Structures are given as C-alpha cells and as structure tokens.
C-alpha cells in the first residue's frame, strides 16, 4: 500500500530529471506530436508578434518576420491616431455587450421552463429542437439571415408588406446590423447554452422538491425559492466567464454579414485586421492592431478570473 501511494502522489521525489524522463517516457512519446503541433501553430506565431514592431515587407518570407527593420511603436502610434480606433473598439464592445445583455438570460429562462415539463421524453425532444441551430455553420446561418431579410423575396419583408409596411433593406442599414447580429446569435446559441442550466436544475435533489410541495408551495414558489438559488452559482460562473469575451467578437459572422454600407456599426477589430493584413498587405500594421486586441482580451479574461475567484471560489486557472 505504501509503495502504491508513493507512486501516485510523487511528482518525482528525489529522482533526477533523467530518471523521471525515463520513467514517464511513454507519456513523453505521446506528447511529441502534440508538442510539435503547439510549437509550430501556437508558440511560433507568438514569436511572430515581433512583426508589430518592425517593417515587414511582403515577400520577405518567414525569416523576414525576425529580420525586418525595427520601427518601434510606429504602427501602434498610427493606429492610436487613426479614426478607426474608437469606431472599432466601440463596435467590438457593443456587439459583445448587447449579445450578453440580450443573450444571457434567455438560456436560463428556457432551462427553467423546459424542466417544468412533466414528461422527460417531451423535455428531451423540445431540447433537441433548440440545439439544432447551434450546429449549423456560420455560412448557412448568415445565408439564411441574408435571404430572409432580403428586400426582394425575403420572408420577413413579405410579411411586412402584407402588414402594409414598406420593405426594409436590413442588411444595408447601419442601425439594423447590431439587432440582426445579436438576435440571430441568441437564436443560434440559447438552446445549447441552456444545457448546463438544465443539468444544474435536474441535479436538484427530488427530496427538496417534495419537501416544498408538502409545505404547500406552488410552482412559482418552488422556482423562486428552490430552483433559482440552486443554479445561482452556475449563473455567476458563466456570467463572469462571458465577461472575459467582452472584446473578442467572432470574426466569421461579422465578415459574412457586413458590407461597406454598414462598416460604421459593423466593422470590428478582427475584420479590420483581416482587411489591413490579408487584403491590403499591411502585415506589420495588422499584426500591431491584432496584438492590441489580444492584450486587451487577455487583460479582461485575467480580471474576470480574479473576480470569479473572489466571488465564487471557481476560477478558470
């Protein structure tokens, strides 16, 4: 027994690095391809961030990343002085902020409602229906949005016309971009995001329900005094975790939905980086803008994690 214990809890008491490497050699063999992957596709690109401080010339290849002329903070100064900065930060933040305000409560409400269904089979069927949009590709979702909202033959405008309202060209009006983005995003994710809340509610001990029922509590009281308090830790944890994504908008959906007419409300940091870097070949400048975004994201996640640790004793790391 004593021997066993030593084996499990010891990181490697008294053993040299080489002995440990030999002992765990099979684990290390397994990790070789994994480590290569992470070095090449994650950590090597991180060293490439040096580009944000030099003048990378298109065509100077991989080594050009490290050997180009050093220009210091030139690209950051250019970005901070540009008219794009406030617009990009505002759009990025507001898309995420509205998504959170609008999208966060819906999975909770849905989870509470769906667990009120008496039959477990019916509950599962309802849930499956709501998962479906989550697994549909961004391209198809954007294609559906675009065609449903189209002023020529889109169903939404057909319905508006039947109600006597003129067609609205949703996709070309800046004031419509955020509602369309937020509502469609919520449509796509609410069912899937409710899974965790449903599981939390299903995890409440049946004895507690029984006790409340014996006490004469009705459904409303059970939800208010038993269900909500039980899922509060889950709510707080997920809320804090989603705060961490405040400045990272998914690139694909904005890219597929926006056009020059709605840049004013739709252009976000990620799409700007793509246009500047891949489309206009301003590699160094785009890297600097991307780095700016990464640093902000990292700071936000870090802060959210600190708050989480303090409030709920649950931290991401």
């Amino acid at each position, binding site marked *: 027994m004593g021997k066993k214990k030593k084996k499990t809890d010891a990181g490697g008491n008294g053993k040299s690095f080489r002995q*440990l490497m030999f002992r765990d050699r099979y684990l290390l063999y*397994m990790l070789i391809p994994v480590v290569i992957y992470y070095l090449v596709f994650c950590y090597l690109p991180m060293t490439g961030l040096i580009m944000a401080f030099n003048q990378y010339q298109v065509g100077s290849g991989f080594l050009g990343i490290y050997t180009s002329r050093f220009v210091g903070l030139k690209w950051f100064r250019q970005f901070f002085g540009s008219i794009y900065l406030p617009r990009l930060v505002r759009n990025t933040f507001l898309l995420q902020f509205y998504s959170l305000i609008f999208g966060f409560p819906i999975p909770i409400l849905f989870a509470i409602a769906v667990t009120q269904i008496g039959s477990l089979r019916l509950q599962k069927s309802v849930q499956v229906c709501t998962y*479906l949009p989550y697994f549909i590709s961004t*391209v198809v979702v954007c294609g559906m949005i675009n065609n449903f909202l189209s002023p020529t033959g889109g169903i939404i405008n057909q319905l508006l016309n039947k109600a006597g309202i003129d067609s609205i060209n949703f996709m070309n009006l800046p004031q419509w971009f955020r509602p369309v983005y937020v509502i469609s995003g919520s449509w796509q994710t609410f069912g899937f995001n409710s899974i965790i809340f*449903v599981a939390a509610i299903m995890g409440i001990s049946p004895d507690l329900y029984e006790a409340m029922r014996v006490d004469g509590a009705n459904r409303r009281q059970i939800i208010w005094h038993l269900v909500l308090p039980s899922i509060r830790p889950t709510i707080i944890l997920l809320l804090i975790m989603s705060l961490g994504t405040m400045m990272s908008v998914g690139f694909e959906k904005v890219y597929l939905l926006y056009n020059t007419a709605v840049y004013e409300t739709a252009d976000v940091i990620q799409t700007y980086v793509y246009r500047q*870097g891949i489309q206009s070949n301003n590699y160094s400048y785009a890297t600097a803008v991307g780095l700016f975004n990464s640093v902000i*994201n990292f700071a936000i996640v870090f802060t959210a994690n600190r708050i989480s640790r303090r409030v709920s004793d649950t931290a991401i790391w």
Partner: protein
Amino acid sequence: MYRNESGVPEKKIQPWDFIFDATIILFLVIAVVICVYPFIYVLSVSVSSGAAVNRGDVMLLPVDLNFEAMKTVLHYKQLWISYGNTFFYTLVGTVCNVIFTCLAAYPLSRKKFFLRRQMNFLLAFTMYFSGGLIPIYIIVTRLGFYNSRWVMIVPVLISAYNVMICRSAFEAISEELFEEAAIEGANDFYILTKIAVPLIKPTLAVLTLYYAVSRYNDFYTAMLYISEPGKEPLQVFLRRILLQASMEITQTTNINMGAVSQSSIQVRYVCIVVAVIPIMLIVPLVQKYLVQGTMLGAVKG
C-alpha cells in the same frame, strides 16, 4: 406565501398559477417554433413551384410541389466537388482530431506525470493568447500549406478546449485501474488504447461530434488558404451562392432569364437544405451524450 402542515393546498388552483403555467407553455412553444420553423420554411420553398414562391404564397408548407430547383442544384457539378472535399476534410480531420486530442489529454491527466503542471499551463495559455491572424498566416503559407488539402486538417489538429474535456474524462477514471495495469507491466500506450479510451466512450462521442461539426462547418481556414475551386469545401461554395449572389448554378442550365430570377432564391434554399441535412441527422444521434460533454467542459474549462 402560505405554509400548511398538510399537503392539501396543492389542489387549490389559483388564477396566478394558471397564468404562470400558460406563460411557460407559450414560451416553450415559441422557442421550439423559432428554432424549427426557419428550416421547415427553407425546405418548403425549395420544393415548391417557382411561381408560388414568387407570389409569396409559401409560408409553412410547400405549394404546388415541384422539384425543378432541387434538380437544377443536384445536377450542378461544383456542388458535388465541394461536397466531396468536405467529406474528405471532415472524415480525415475528425479522426486525426480525436486521436491527437487523446494523445494530448492522456499524459496531462496522469497525476504522476512529472511535467503535468507545466504542460497544462502551456496548453491553457494558448486558449487565452495567440499570435494572431498575420503571423499564423505567414507561417502556414510558408510551410507550403497554401492550396494544400492538408491545410484543412493540420493547422486545426487540436482544440485546447476539447483536450480539457477529454482530460477531465480521463481524470474521472479510478486511479487504481491504472496502478493495477502498471503493475501488470502494461505501458502507457497499452493503458491508453485498451483501458482508458474504452472507458470514456461517451465523452469521445461528444468530442467526435464537436470536431466533426467544426470540420464540416470550417469556412475560416478555407477562406484564408484555399483558392482552387477543385479543393474548396462546401462552406466556401455555399458562401458564393448564399451571400455573394453567385448565379453560377442557374447559368449552367438552359433556363430563360425570367425563370432564372424566379428560381434564384429557390436555388439558394435548396443549397441550404443540402448543406444542413447531415447535421440534422447526426445531432439527434449524439444528443444523449451532449449533457455529459458540456458539463465536463464547464467544470474545468
């Protein structure tokens, strides 16, 4: 609020309770309808007659059942080329994803592994910080991946988030099982493939679903690195048809221009149907494992 000693008050139905129940039912009905209706509508439009679609008659069910648009799309060669490519990327990609995720997750889950903490940190770090688009783009293209089929598989080989889900599943296995196997002289490759993997099948089912769906839906990688039509995946093709109003399908067939404008929206909806069918078939199959996979991710993730 009332608290009686006996269970009697349950039978007393108050008007507020009725309104409350009705609200819940209404809410659920709306939730199901908004999730399912768009797909039914798209399907109905794609199998209705062009004239009925143009008049705006199709709202829920097909009007004048007609498979012309369906035929037009299914006869278009590029659809099948891109479909075939996506099939390849999804199949090979998912298999590689799952294998490499297990290879990453297993050592990170072993409590005795001497680099466990360090490796876990390096993994988690990649979730919160990355080199960003441009350095990755330069490295991937410089490695010769541009317009290579492997670009859809290799740069997206491992998702750190999924590794964490997998790691939690391995960690949940009783430690004694590993110890006994080790005493019997089994090495870690044997333990992983013969003992650990069979024990986490439900989690692997969820991971397979997640990976398969991301490979099937991957537009971003293809947009960046694939420009040859012969290698493009379905999502790139769909983007041209659905979002860039490409007329390539209707142009290839010998329909006159009036019919073209009639059927262009139908053609798009048929493409949506064709693209969504595999997802609709797979998700319900794996749904019973979904809860487990999501919960494991939330605990650690």
